[in-house]
């Protein structure tokens, strides 16, 4: 074996130090829930956006339910007014439902599930009661709600709603909801049961 030159040795040691630093920061980032704030701040600065990673699919627990994002919209009575309250709501539909297709496209179904997860987290953390009334203000102000609403509005704007063509009307209000189907407990005699959480109606400003 040739004795490595000192410069090459220094370079190699630098590489090794780089590897150790990189994976130390990776581990801090991966286990950020259990790390001190200052360590997270340093790791975040290094890891986002170049080395972002998240390996927590189905961890620590698997959701005990199947969840679907559904939407409906309110068609304004023809020809005016364009403010809400009148007209008729469409039936609730799956967010990625497409006419003529047996199943929703996998890519869009993955997108929908991402929104469902974010909205479920919002329900868990930001839904509260005030004088026995359920308050959604934190949820409707969240990026998760905005993203889900934007998605259904955009997707179905592109797909052209049936009454758009027929009556040249634009929806004046939108509403989304999450439909949870809870899996039956293993070895239990009970069937799956459903629960629906409707978010407040959204009236966009008239164009």
């Amino acid at each position, binding site marked *: 074996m040739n004795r490595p030159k000192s410069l090459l040795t220094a370079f190699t040691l630098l590489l090794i130090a780089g590897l150790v630093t990189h994976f130390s920061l990776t*581990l801090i980032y991966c286990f950020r829930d259990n790390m001190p704030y200052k360590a997270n701040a340093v790791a975040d600065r290094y890891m986002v956006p170049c080395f972002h990673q998240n*390996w927590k699919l189905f961890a620590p627990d698997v959701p005990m339910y199947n969840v679907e994002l559904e939407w409906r919209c309110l068609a304004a009575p023809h020809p005016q007014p364009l403010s809400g309250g009148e007209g008729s709501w469409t039936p609730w539909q799956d967010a990625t439902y497409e006419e003529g297709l047996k199943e929703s496209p996998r890519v869009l179904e993955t*997108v929908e599930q991402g929104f469902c997860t974010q909205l479920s987290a919002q329900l868990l953390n930001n839904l509260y009661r005030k004088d026995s009334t359920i308050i959604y203000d934190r949820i409707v102000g969240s990026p998760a709600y905005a993203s889900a609403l934007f998605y259904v509005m955009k997707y179905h704007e592109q797909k052209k709603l049936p009454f758009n063509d027929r009556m040249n009307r634009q929806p004046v209000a939108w509403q989304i909801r999450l439909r949870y189907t809870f899996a039956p407990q293993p070895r239990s005699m009970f069937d799956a049961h459903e629960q629906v959480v409707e978010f407040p109606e959204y009236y966009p400003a008239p164009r």
Partner: protein
Amino acid sequence: MKKYVTQLTHYFISEVHGKRSLVLFGMLVYAWFLLQAVVLFFWHEQLWGADKLFFRHGFPDTFIENFFFQLVYESGRAPVVFALHMVCAFLSMVSFHPAFYRTKNKWSLVFWNTCALGVRLCTWVSGLMLFYAAIEAFDGGMLLMLLMAFYCSFAFVHTANSYLIAVTNAARIACLVQVCVVYLTASLYKLGGTHWIDGSALYYTLHIELFSSNWWQSFTENNYFITQLFTWLGLAYQVLFPLMVWVKRVQKIWLLVGIAFHLFIAVVLGLWGFGLGMMICYVVFWREQKIKDGDL
């Protein structure tokens, strides 16, 4: 101490370890990107086009964030980045072929290695841009392959330069450690929950419509013990992977079990991107003698 430093540096600079498996691994990583791009081509308008389906979030206003998140704001650049990504993924895949490096001219080698580094980094950067602009459409497979693409950028497999050999070995070690980090993180989080411990995790997973079918749902209800058994086996595999994969005696069988495990994830749960990505990562663990000369 000096002895250990010498041994360590010698390991890094003596030769490119796992050369053939690294070539195959690098080719497969970029082939994965190419395949993914072809699949997503039909959805590029909805995911990255002017009328894309994603709400534009705010991000920290720094140079690096502005650079990597630019497609979130500037969807007009998406077709160029998408095309660049596909072309660079193809060129990166080809860049591992030894034919380009069969020259004794030093400057030719420098040229080809620089080109290889350029197209591989370009695949990584464009992949990151596409990922952040449609983050909801991707699973862990894209994250894993992006990391591998970054490490593989520095895999100069066909080189005689000691510095580049050291960099290549570091890149290979990074790939190996990254796979262990995936298993370590996933398994430790799972150990902190209850579903994996009581064996109901697979049962509940197969009750999520996106990852299942009616047949699998009724199967898990009628064969709950088998479902529990596979949950525990899956957990044990993930917990033990970072240790067992280094044991020479069991490595081959361990990786074969892993291939079956990830085939299940790909075929049954429908997570093709992640399943294929993990199987590709196993190639880098394959020991040199397992791939015969002339296979590539």
